[in-house]
Structure formats: C-alpha cells, structure tokens
C-alpha cells in the first residue's frame, strides 16, 4: 500500500487527451464543460481499486442525471503488469458495463502531469476545471457502507457552487506501476 499527500487542490487541472478502450479520444478541457468532473486513476489488478470500484460506479450512476462527467484512467505499465493491458481494460469495460470511459495512459504522461500516485486516486473538478477535491473515495476500502461518502460530499459541494468541507484526503491504494 502507498499513501501520497494531496498537493494540488485549488490549482487548475492539467490538460488530458487520452483514448478509451474503443479508441475514442477524450479531452479535458472539452466543449460544454460539465458542472463537475471526476477523474479517477485506477487499474485492473489493485485490490484497493477493485474494492472501491463498485462504490465509484454507483456514484457515477447516481450523479449521471446532474451532468457530472466521470473519466477513469489506467496508467500502469502493461508490459510488466499484463493485467493492465489495453485488451484487459477493454474486456473489463465490456463485461462489467462501465458507465464511464476507461482511458489508457500508455505513456504515463497524464499520471505524471496530474501527480497521480496510487490507485484509486480521485480528483473532483469544478466547472472551471479547478481541482476542488483530491484523495480517496471514502475512509475505508473494506467497508462498502462508507458509500464513497468523501467523493459524494465533494460533488454535492461543487454542484451547489461551494467548496468541499474536506478538500483533500490521503489517497490510499497500490502505487502506480511506473515504467
């Protein structure tokens, strides 16, 4: 397990331009920016990412009607960690019916630009693409009852035009597998 301290809250989010599992390019910024955007660094084989995954998916479905944009990014070195290959990502999206695109950061440049360090590592952006929350989905990957409450709390604040009361938490998970 790795922990990384939050350092980027309040800053403007770095640009993003990555393909999803079907080859479609997703960008940040994008025309008609969403009222809130969630970027989550994740992967296929980390038990922390897997333990929190269903909770994050549930948040995406719950906030879909409010126009929140979700993007998941996998930056792991697939050569050394074949579980994180593009093919494995594609299989997972199709078999699990993901409600958001799963982006492939093959060069790892996005992870470096964002200073993403673990999976999962979440960022919540306001409509101006300023980072308003960085950290974990909630306080305990072992307890589904936590319901990604930190992520929900941050989204509710951004959608209400205010600041999250808890702008940063320590992201907890497996370190990103650098080349």
């Amino acid at each position, binding site marked *: *397990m790795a922990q990384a301290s939050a350092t980027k809250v309040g800053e403007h989010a770095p640009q993003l331009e990555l393909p999803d599992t079907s080859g479609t390019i997703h960008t940040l910024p994008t025309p008609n920016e969403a009222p809130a955007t969630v970027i989550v660094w994740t992967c296929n*084989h*980390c*038990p*922390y990412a*897997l*333990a929190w995954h269903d909770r994050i998916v549930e948040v995406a479905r719950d906030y879909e009607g409010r126009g929140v944009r979700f993007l998941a990014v996998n930056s792991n070195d697939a050569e*050394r*960690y*074949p*579980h994180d290959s593009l093919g494995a990502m594609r299989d997972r999206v199709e078999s699990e019916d993901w409600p958001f695109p799963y982006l492939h950061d093959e060069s790892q440049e996005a992870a470096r630009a964002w200073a993403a360090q673990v999976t999962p590592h979440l960022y919540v952006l306001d409509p101006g693409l300023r980072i308003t929350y960085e950290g974990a989905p909630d306080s305990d990957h*072992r307890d*589904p009852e936590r319901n990604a409450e930190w992520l929900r709390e941050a989204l509710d604040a951004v959608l209400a035009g205010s600041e999250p009361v808890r702008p940063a938490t320590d992201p907890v998970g*497996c370190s990103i*597998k650098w080349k």
Partner: protein
Amino acid sequence: MLREEMSAVGLDPEEIEVREVSTGADAEREEFIGSPTIRVDGRDVQPVPDEPIGLACRVYRLPDGRISPLPDPAEVRQTLAEAMNGGD
C-alpha cells in the same frame, strides 16, 4: 498480520522469509501471482490455481466475498496450524 498470527500459534515471527519478486523472470521462477503472497512451508494461504503468473498486486477474497489486499487472518492462522500439524 502474519507476524501476529504466527505469534498467536506459538511460532517465531523472526522465521519469516521475505522474498522480493521484481521481474517477470522472478515471477515465473517463484510461480508468483501477486504481492503479497504468503506461503507456509510452500503452501499458499489462499490457493488460486487458475490465477496467471506475473507481477501484480494480489487480490484476496474474504469469507464474506469482499476484496482485500490481505488474506483473512483466520485463514492464515488455519494454514499455520495445519502446517504445524503435519500439513493436513
């Protein structure tokens, strides 16, 4: 956790042998399926025969089905106890 469980069954935690698996070749040689892997006298505390060999973070299943980065302590203790009783 392993140290605690070893102490609980009367084993010396200093007997733990830690092996670093950092390359694909290491993983093949050790038949390694993810970190952390805990073997007691060579026996995995949660065998998963179909899991592919390679560098990865290990995904354990707890008795209630939840995913965990570590095995259930009771499972570890049982494996230790069985090894002490001759491997049954």
